[in-house]
C-alpha cells in the first residue's frame, strides 16, 4: 500500500531490484526514488552495476527480483518502447545504413505515426540539437559529437518522460565532452524531463546532477546532492571515490573528553570540538581522520609554533598550474595539501599543518562509516 502511494509522487521508482548472472549478484536489493524532473547521476567504478541498473529501468534486462514504476505505473514486465523512456548509449548505436533523418524517425515510424507529425518532431529535435545540416547524411559521415547529438535526438523525438544516458560522453575527447556536458544540462533545463545519467567521471557527475547515487558492488552507498556528497561523505568509500586529488585519510584515535574531543596522531593532538559528530562523541575509538587537500593549510615560522597544528616535513611538490599539490610526511603517514602556486616549498623543509576541522570527516576505522 505504502509503496503504491510513494510511486505516485515520483517519476521513476525502483523497489528492491536484484539482478544476478548465475552466482554473480550484480545488483543487491536496490531501491531508488526519483522525483519528476530530477537529474540523477549514477556514479561508480567500472563493473559496479550501473549499466545493469539502467538496462533494468529501460526494460532491456529482466530483473531477477523487484519492481520498477515509471510515472506510478508498474512497468516491471513492460516492453522498453512502452515505458516512456529514451536511451542514449556510449557507442551511439545509430543505425549505420539509415540517414540521420531516418535514424531520428525510426521509432516514430515503428509506432505508425502520421507523416507530418513525424516531420514536425524531427524538425524540432534537430533544431534543439543543431543537427539540421546533417539530416541527409549517414552516421559514418558524422563526427563523434554529432553522432551523439543524433543519438540524443532519437530519444528527444519520441517525447519520452525519462531519458536514460549510459556514459554518453565517454567516447569523446575532453574538449567535446565539456561542450556536450553543458548542452545536456541546458537540454535538461529546457525540457524539464527526468534524466538518469550513468558515468564514472566525477566532474560530469558533480556538474550535471541534482542528486548523485554513488554505487559500489551493486548497491548504492550514498544518494545525495553533489555538494553534500563532497563535503559530508557517508563512508570512507564515498569519501575516497569523490574528489580529485583525493581526500587524505590519517589513522588516529579520538581522545580528550566528550565536551572537548581531540584526535591524536602519533603523539600530537588536535582539538576537534568544532566537528559535528552524528551520534555522540566516540572517545577512545580508532578512526580515520579525513581531510581534503584544499582544507589543509601549511604554516611556517611563528605560526607553526601554535596549538592545534601538526609538525610535518615537505616531501614533494606537484605544480598543477592554478595551484600546487604539496605532499607532506606526518609521522609515518603521507598527506597532500593544496596551496597557491605562488607559494614555494622545498623538499625536506620542516613545516606545520593545520586542518579545517569543520570541513573534515571522521570515519570509523573498522566499519568505514562516518562518525
Amino acid at each position: 500500500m505504502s509503496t503504491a502511494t510513494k510511486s505516485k509522487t515520483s517519476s521513476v521508482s525502483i523497489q528492491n531490484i536484484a539482478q544476478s548472472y548465475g552466482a554473480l549478484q550484480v545488483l543487491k536489493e536496490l531501491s531508488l526514488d526519483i522525483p519528476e524532473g530530477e537529474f540523477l547521476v549514477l556514479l561508480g567504478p567500472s563493473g559496479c552495476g550501473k549499466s545493469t541498473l539502467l538496462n533494468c529501468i529501460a526494460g532491456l534486462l529482466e530483473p531477477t527480483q523487484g519492481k520498477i514504476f515509471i510515472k506510478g505505473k508498474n512497468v516491471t514486465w513492460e516492453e522498453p518502447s512502452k515505458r516512456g523512456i529514451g536511451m542514449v548509449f556510449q557507442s551511439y548505436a545509430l543505425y549505420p545504413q539509415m540517414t540521420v533523418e531516418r535514424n531520428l524517425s525510426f521509432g516514430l515510424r515503428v509506432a505508425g505515426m502520421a507523416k507530418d507529425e513525424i516531420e514536425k518532431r524531427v524538425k524540432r529535435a534537430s533544431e534543439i540539437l543543431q543537427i539540421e545540416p546533417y539530416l541527409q547524411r549517414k552516421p559514418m559521415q558524422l563526427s563523434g559529437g554529432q553522432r551523439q547529438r543524433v543519438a540524443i535526438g532519437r530519444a528527444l523525438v519520441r517525447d519520452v518522460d525519462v531519458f536514460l544516458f549510459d556514459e554518453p560522453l565517454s567516447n569523446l575527447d575532453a574538449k567535446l565532452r565539456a561542450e556536450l556536458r553543458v548542452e545536456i544540462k541546458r537540454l535538461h533545463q529546457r525540457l524539464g524531463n527526468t534524466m538518469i545519467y550513468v558515468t564514472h567521471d566525477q566532474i560530469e557527475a558533480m556538474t550535471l546532477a541534482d542528486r548523485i547515487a554513488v554505487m559500489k558492488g551493486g548497491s548504492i552507498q550514498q544518494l545525495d546532492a553533489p555538494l553534500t556528497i563532497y563535503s559530508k561523505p557517508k563512508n570512507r568509500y564515498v569519501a575516497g571515490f569523490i574528489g580529485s586529488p583525493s581526500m587524505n585519510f590519517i589513522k588516529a584515535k579520538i581522545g580528550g573528553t566528550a565536551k572537548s574531543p581531540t584526535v591524536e596522531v602519533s603523539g600530537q593532538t588536535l582539538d576537534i570540538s568544532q566537528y559535528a559528530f552524528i551520534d555522540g562523541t566516540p572517545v577512545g575509538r580508532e578512526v580515520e581522520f579525513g581531510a581534503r587537500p584544499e582544507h589543509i593549510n601549511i604554516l611556517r615560522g611563528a605560526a607553526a609554533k601554535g596549538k592545534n597544528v601538526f609538525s610535518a616535513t615537505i616531501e614533494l611538490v606537484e605544480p598543477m598550474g592554478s595551484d600546487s599539490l604539496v605532499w607532506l610526511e606526518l609521522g609515518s603517514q603521507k598527506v597532500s595539501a593544496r596551496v597557491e602556486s605562488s607559494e614555494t616549498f622545498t623538499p625536506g623543509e620542516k613545516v606545520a599543518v593545520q586542518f579545517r576541522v569543520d570541513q573534515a570527516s571522521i570515519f570509523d576505522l573498522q566499519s568505514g562509516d562516518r562518525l
Partner: protein
Amino acid sequence: MSTEALDPQGPKPRHWYEWERIVVYTFLILTSVYFLMPLYIVIITSFKDLDHIRDGNIFWPQFSYGEITTTDPAGNTVTAMAHWWSPWYRAMFEVCTGLECRGITPNFLNSVIITAWSVPISIAVALTTGYALSNWPFKFSEAFFTVLIVGSFIPFQVMLYPMVLLTKNMGIYSTLSCVVFVHTVFGLPILTLLFRNYFASLPVELFKAARVDGAGFWRILFQVFLPMAIPIMTVAVILQVTGIWNDFLFGVVFAGLPNYPMTVKLNNIFTSTFGIKEYNVEMAATMIAGSVPLLIYFLSGKYFIRGIAAGAVKG
C-alpha cells in the same frame, strides 16, 4: 651548402629487371600456365571435331570445319556438316546416356531449379536462426547452438540413410523438392554458425536501441540487421551456390532418375560405354556445367568487395 643535400635520399630506386622480380614473375607465370593449361585444352577440344582430336595436336586449336561422321545409338553411321559449335549443340540437346538422347539441357534445368530454391531457402532459414540465437536467447539456446556446431562436423554420409527414410516417410523422396529439402537441412549448421557469429560481432547496443525504439523481432532483422549483413550474405550465397551446384551425392541419392542434376548427368556421359567416345562433346558439357559457378564468382567478386567496404559497422 653541402652537396650532400642534393644527393638522392632514401633507398636506391629499384629497376624492373632486378633478379628478385624476375624470380617472382617467373614463378607466377609458370603457376598460371600450370593451372590454365587444362582449362585451355578443355576449351579448344570442345570446339574440335573427332577427327581433329584423334589426329591433331592436343595443344593446337582447329580452325577449319568439314564433314564429320558419327554413330547414333541404333548403330547407323551418320554424316553431317560440322560447325565449330556442333559439339556444344550435341552436348546440350543430343548427347545420350542409356537410351535417352536429349542432351544435358533437362539436367541443367534441374540444377537451376534445385539451386534457385535451395539457396534462398537455406539462407533465409539460417539467417533467422542465427539472428535469434545471437540476439534473442531462450532457455536452451546455448545447448541448441552446441548441437548445431557438432552437427556441422558430422559427415553427411552418416546421415544419408536416415535422411532417405525420413524423406520417404514425408513422401517427397525422388523429387526435386526432396533435394531442395536435403540441401536446406544440411546447409543449416554451417550457415547458422556464419550468421550467428556475424550478428554477435555487431554492437549489442544497436539491438538495444532498436528495442527501445519499439522494433520487434522481424523489424530489427529486416530493417536494422539485414542491411548490415551484405558482406556475410555474399559469402553465404557464394558458399551455397557453388556447394549446391557442384553437389553430386545428394543428387544421386535423393533426386531420382528424371530429376538428376547436371553433375550426375555429366558423370553418366563420361562413364557411358555406348558407341564411340566423343571427347569434344564431353568437354563442351563440362564447360556448360562449370559456367554457372564461374559466372557467380565473376559477378559477385565485385559485390563482395563492395559489400565489405560498405558494411563497415562502425558508427
